[in-house]
């Protein structure tokens, strides 16, 4: 690990004061805000009011935090069905910003912010970045896309708030990213984990050793990632890699962040109420159990979401973190409930494929799963981008590698997998997030 300031876990930053609020007080803040946001949604969002009516539930019946379990869920389809502005709870003249999801399937979803919402967003992002040591004097390279996607601007304003120097590199143009890393000397990078791995790969090809550069920490998010990806990033770039979780529907990046202990991501609970539910039954699960993360925005005005089902699989971690923060932690999201594939009756997650690729020397987790059905039998093909390291003039060597990958995947996934090597950068990426699964099975 290179020298330079790593955040010391106990170094207190004024931006982070709210992270240490006494628990009793925090729960009271949450309850007050929950009641207010439920009232606001009831008053202003017809869909929410009709769902409450169906349940015979009135806002004043929410008297404790556990009463949240009575409230109806909001799902992604609700945002699509009310496209574009149907869930807004503020008139357009109060809305100062619109963002939209990438919309890889069908229409995008639109989210809105009042001036106050933007202030909250900036403040949680500043808290998140400060937690891992970003400060005045840091130079930050932001490789999240600027535009409709919340990633670019969300990170941008948070870093600026801390007085850091922001380079709005945006996504793509990998060689330029590397040039900036070399010439501008950023100490911090922001990126999706898969895009950063791509940068790492390209830098290696160009003979640029990222470990020699001043960059010392990175924040990664916007897609599920695993421990294996983290260690690959940390080793190849000589940085500490932190998880920064968020989603556009809730606010964008800034829902939770790791602290230097890297043991779960602290949720900014004063603004977001987190629950874990059984994705099948919708029942709230006790602390520590794995399930689907459900989030309620406690303070957003333009588009409050009540019990939004994120589809992200996580768990609320029991106990307090060694860093002393009182806000609770969620386990880093490694997979999504709607990522689960059932192939010949076997449950398969794309993250398992990724883990195999990361264990192999020379392969990158740039892959795509293609599902087809031949004679009533599911076929799973994993396309893997060929890298400089594994490409050879000898066909036999590559066939051996393909076979090894297939075997390893079969071991882990318990189902037959055909691995196909494909040309570099052919797997579709949107917003720097990879599209992992193409299901062509006609059922």
């Amino acid at each position, binding site marked *: 690990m290179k020298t330079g300031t790593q955040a010391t876990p106990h170094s207190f930053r004024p931006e982070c004061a709210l992270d240490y609020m006494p628990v009793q007080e925090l729960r009271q803040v949450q309850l007050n805000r929950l009641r207010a946001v439920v009232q606001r949604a009831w008053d202003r969002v017809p869909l929410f009011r009709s769902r409450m009516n169906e349940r015979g539930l009135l806002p004043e019946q929410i008297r404790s935090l556990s009463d949240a379990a009575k409230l109806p869920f909001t799902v992604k389809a609700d945002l699509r069905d009310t496209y574009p502005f149907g869930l807004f709870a503020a008139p357009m003249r109060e809305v100062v910003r619109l963002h939209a999801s990438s919309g890889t399937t069908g229409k995008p979803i639109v989210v809105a912010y009042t001036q106050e919402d933007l202030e909250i967003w900036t403040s949680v992002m500043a808290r998140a970045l400060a937690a891992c040591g970003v400060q005045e004097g840091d130079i930050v390279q932001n490789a999240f896309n600027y535009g409709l996607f919340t990633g670019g601007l969300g990170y941008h304003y948070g870093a600026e708030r801390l007085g850091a120097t922001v380079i709005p590199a945006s996504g793509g143009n990998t060689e330029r990213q590397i040039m900036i890393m070399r010439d501008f000397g950023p100490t911090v990078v922001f990126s999706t984990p898969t895009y950063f791995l791509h940068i790492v790969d390209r830098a290696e090809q160009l003979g640029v050793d990222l470990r020699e550069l001043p960059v010392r920490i990175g924040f990664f998010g916007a897609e599920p990632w695993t421990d294996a990806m983290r260690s690959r990033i940390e080793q190849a770039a000589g940085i500490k890699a932190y998880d920064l979780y968020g989603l556009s529907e809730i606010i964008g990046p800034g829902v939770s962040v790791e602290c230097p202990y890297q043991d779960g991501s602290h949720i900014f609970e004063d603004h977001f109420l987190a629950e874990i539910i059984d994705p099948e039954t919708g029942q709230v699960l006790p602390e520590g159990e794995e399930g689907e993360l459900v989030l309620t925005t406690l303070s957003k005005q333009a588009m409050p979401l009540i019990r939004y089902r994120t589809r992200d699989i996580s768990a609320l971690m029991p106990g307090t973190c060694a860093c002393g923060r009182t806000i609770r932690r969620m386990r880093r999201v490694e997979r999504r409930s709607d990522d689960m594939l059932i192939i010949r009756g076997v449950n398969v997650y794309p993250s398992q494929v990724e883990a195999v690729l990361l264990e192999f020397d020379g392969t990158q987790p740039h892959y795509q799963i293609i599902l087809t059905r031949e004679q009533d039998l599911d076929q799973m093909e994993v396309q893997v981008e*060929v*890298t*400089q390291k594994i*490409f*050879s*003039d*000898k*066909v*036999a060597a*590559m*066939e051996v590698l*393909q076979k090894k990958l297939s075997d390893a995947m079969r071991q882990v996934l318990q189902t037959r997998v055909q691995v*196909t*090597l*494909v*040309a*570099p*950068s*052919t797997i579709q990426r949107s917003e720097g997030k990879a599209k992992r699964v193409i299901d062509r099975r006609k059922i």
Partner: protein
Amino acid sequence: MKITQLSVFAENKPGYIIAPCRRLADAGIRIRAISLAETKAFGVLRMIVSDWKSATRLLEESGFMVRPTEVLAIEVPEGPHGLSELLLAVEKTALNIEYMYAFPYGHADKGILVFQFDDLDAAVERLQQAGVNLVSREALQEIYGD
């Protein structure tokens, strides 16, 4: 004594062989020899070109996966038994052949075999001992006049 060959990764998709060739043609780079090794899923296009450094840069810039590798070019002796005599000489060296392809040598009625061995240095040594005529990079350039 070795020459440089370019290998280009080719998916089994329409256009994947034409595209790199067209790219080189547009830049005025000559392809002296070409061979495709294919599997069910992908292929490797192997080429001997007039300027392998520019060709590599060009193809990489166009998004192709390219690998320059060294191979041996052996001149096939003249006469009706030229080829079989050469192959016999190679076989006697007990070298392990990875792949081989042929191309005509300039305008003369001659041929060149491109060989990849699993141990290229050992191959150079043993083939020279066996009196086999290895064609150098310079000799190739001279023949083609570039």
